């Protein structure tokens, strides 16, 4: 009887009612709104294209020509006054990116003279005029004037069956909205970029102390310390700005993995320097040099934004400003603590601990980035650094506590 119950119950489990997600693949229209036109990135599942059009899918000239003609007959737009927009299919090919192959096309939608490029009635019937369950998702991926830079996409609407038109109104837009969005992106990126900030902080560790032969010695005067800090931060900024602009505008490129490994190595070198003077007096030079490497990593995030040169330039400028702002905040938060603690006997221990911390992180990240496999140390480091603000706050409390406990050492003249 027990077996019977188990067997029968199992039957019930295995025959639970089906509730699959949408069983037919979707098309996507990804729209980028520029100052003079709309660029549409079109993705149509190849299978549904073949089903709807009756055409053969392929990248030979005949198949692509047939696909172009078919697509041109199924997409259009009109201005609010009814005048037709011009539709230009720039690229079309069948590609396999993730999952089954797709028809991928780039389509430029050009408004008639005098029409607002931010207001249109989109008309789309590709596949949905033949396959009733097919669904087209329309999203905005870039709209500089609305501060949308492609990090987040905005759903504009959807089309299915007889619903083949979508009214789009992006509003007036603000001239610097994109730049502000880029700045936010830069701030967000550097705030989450533990490796970038750790490199900078490791370079700052020896800033308040003097090198004496092969060791760090007593505290440096405050003014000299501040100049050192400013030099390091400025040099790092110049360095990463050069490569950020170069990569974003002139398409300078290195493969991502070596760049990431070099960044980890830069942290290791800074950590070693914080332990023992490796390049005393040349910290700014090193910061600038490695800044070039860090800039290549930044560029991967911001290249490609902006439909015209002005938008691209403002995007890069805004992004860089965002990075600088967070850098300055971090330096402003950390520097006072370093200055205070440097005037106590505890600084060598703090400097050493900080250097070791950065060194361990660097080794873990090198291993992770070379092997492509995560490791618990790297994961632990990332987990710890997400609590960065708490660490900085803790450092300040430590500085204040140490200041009360120890007599200040006189700075060396």
């Amino acid at each position: 009887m027990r077996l019977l119950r188990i067997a029968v119950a199992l039957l019930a489990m295995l025959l639970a009612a089906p509730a699959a997600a949408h069983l037919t693949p979707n098309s996507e229209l990804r729209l980028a709104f520029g100052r003079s036109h709309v660029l549409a990135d079109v993705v149509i599942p190849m299978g549904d294209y073949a089903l709807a059009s009756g055409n053969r899918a392929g990248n030979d000239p005949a198949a692509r020509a047939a696909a172009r003609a078919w697509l041109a007959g199924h997409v259009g737009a009109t201005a609010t006054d009814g005048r037709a927009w011009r539709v230009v299919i720039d690229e079309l090919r069948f590609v396999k990116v993730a999952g089954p192959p797709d028809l991928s096309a780039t389509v430029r939608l050009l408004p008639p003279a005098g029409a607002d490029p931010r207001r249109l009635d989109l008309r789309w019937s590709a596949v949905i005029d033949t396959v009733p369950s097919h669904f087209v998702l329309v999203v905005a991926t870039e709209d500089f004037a609305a501060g949308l830079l492609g990090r987040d996409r905005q759903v504009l609407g959807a089309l299915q069956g007889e619903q083949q038109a979508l009214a789009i109104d992006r509003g007036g837009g603000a001239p610097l909205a994109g730049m502000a969005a880029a700045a936010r992106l830069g701030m967000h990126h550097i705030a989450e970029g533990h490796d970038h900030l750790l490199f900078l902080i490791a370079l700052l560790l020896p800033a308040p102390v003097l090198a004496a032969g092969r060791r760090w010695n007593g505290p440096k005067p405050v003014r000299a310390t501040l100049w050192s800090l400013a030099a390091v931060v400025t040099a790092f900024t110049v360095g990463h700005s050069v490569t950020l602009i170069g990569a974003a505008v002139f398409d300078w490129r290195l493969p991502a993995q070596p760049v990431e490994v070099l960044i980890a190595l830069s942290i290791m070198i800074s950590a070693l320097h914080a332990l023992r003077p490796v390049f005393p007096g040349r910290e700014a030079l090193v910061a600038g040099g490695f800044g070039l490497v860090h800039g290549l990593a930044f560029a991967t995030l911001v290249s490609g934004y902006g439909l015209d040169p002005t938008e691209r330039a403002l995007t890069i400028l805004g992004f860089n400003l965002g990075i600088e702002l967070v850098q300055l905040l971090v330096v402003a938060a950390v520097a006072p603590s370093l200055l205070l603690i440097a005037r106590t006997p505890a600084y060598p221990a703090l400097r050493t601990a900080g250097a070791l911390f950065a060194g361990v992180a660097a080794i873990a990240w090198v291993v992770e980035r070379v092997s492509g496999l995560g490791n618990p140390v790297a994961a632990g480091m990332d987990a710890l650094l997400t609590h960065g603000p708490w660490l900085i706050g803790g450092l300040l409390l430590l500085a204040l506590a140490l200041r009360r406990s120890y007599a200040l050492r006189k700075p060396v003249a």
Partner: protein
Amino acid sequence: MSAASPAAAPPPMAAGGSALTILRFAVLLLLAGLIVTVIGRLTQPEQPREDRSVLERIGTTPGPTDHATALAWAEDGVSNAAARVPDGQGDWLAQELYASSLLTRARLTARAEDYAAAGAALARGNAQAANGTGPMLVTAQYALTVHRPREAVAPLNDYLRQAIMSDAEKAAGTAMLGDVAFFTGDLGGAKRRYDEAQGIWRDPTTEYRLARWHRKAGDPDAAIDSFARVVRGTGRRMPEFVAGLYLQLGALALDQGDWTAAERRFVQADARFGGWWLARAHRAQMRGALGDVKAAERLYREALALNPDPSVMDGYAALLRSQGRAADARAVAARAGAEWQRRLRIAPSAMAGHALEHELAWGSPPHALALARANHRLHPDGDAAVLLGWALLANGRAAEAIGVVEPVEAAGWKGWQTYALLAEAYALAGRGDDADDARKTALERNPRAFDPGQSLLWFGTH
């Protein structure tokens, strides 16, 4: 930075001191690494409480190790039981045994004729039985199996009113009342009944139900833990049971977007219960989803050779469609459609949900909607609501779809499929922000929720 003046230069270090210094720093470095690792582990998300390693080494007891043998046994069972009910005659106990044997065979073949015959046998048995007797439990289980949960209530109440019953039997009846609640959309009521049943008698089948409950509530981790408890609590594990468990675990991996892990589980299922068409079809779809079209096609053909089930045809048609082989896809889909129509005539409630999936992909939206409404009327659980939602969307009724699915989401059906549907429905209804939110929620639960390969997943997504 400036170097110190020569007068303050430190004394040179002894030669041996360099080595000691290096050693000291290496030790400090290792210590720092250890501290960081410990801190990292402490800040990691909480690990599951159950030992899931039991799921990797599930032993089996003697029993049919492959589908063909199990089916042969089931056929024997049907023959023997049928001999006791010649021309439909026989007492209610014989009818009950006959119905059970048919359901056992149906579990292996999914044939509509067996469900219909089992229902007829149970109807005869119940007609003969005096009050308070009869095939109560099997009748209730049959009702649940063919997606008519409300018809299980009366026999279950009769069953639980028996004067003499063991704790195990009482727990079984209570758990099945939980199933009624589950399949009529009352997730909270279902959980209460399952917990009540476990309080009466801890039974792995109730734990199995809890695994399903957790899955539909959007907590795959809790579901996996439940399955681990099932394994520990199940004394006898036939190969078919083990294979079924692996299919469920694979389905959970699909829910979490881990297609590689899902495939691994489906391969395990196929290995533990050889020649099972359903496990083979699961493997076929994963090969297709992971980009190995040739292997997927071969596996689908093997599954069809084992059992030309229309759900396998639908999966195969989806694969062909994705590759642009429209004519081949249409031909296979047409055969599937014809078979679904035939099965719907024989066992409508058991087949409605599956036939509806076919209609959504290949058929007519109005017909799909009719099937979906009927399906939902019979068992208004979250899954049926989501299917009705898809059918409504296919008919251009986005607002109505939202009206159907939002309440089940609020009632606790928080699987990624619910949010994937809502994302689409909101987008069609012009609610872009809501669509974005629903989309994000779906992706949080299943990072592959909107992967193009989802259209190839016909098995294990329910």
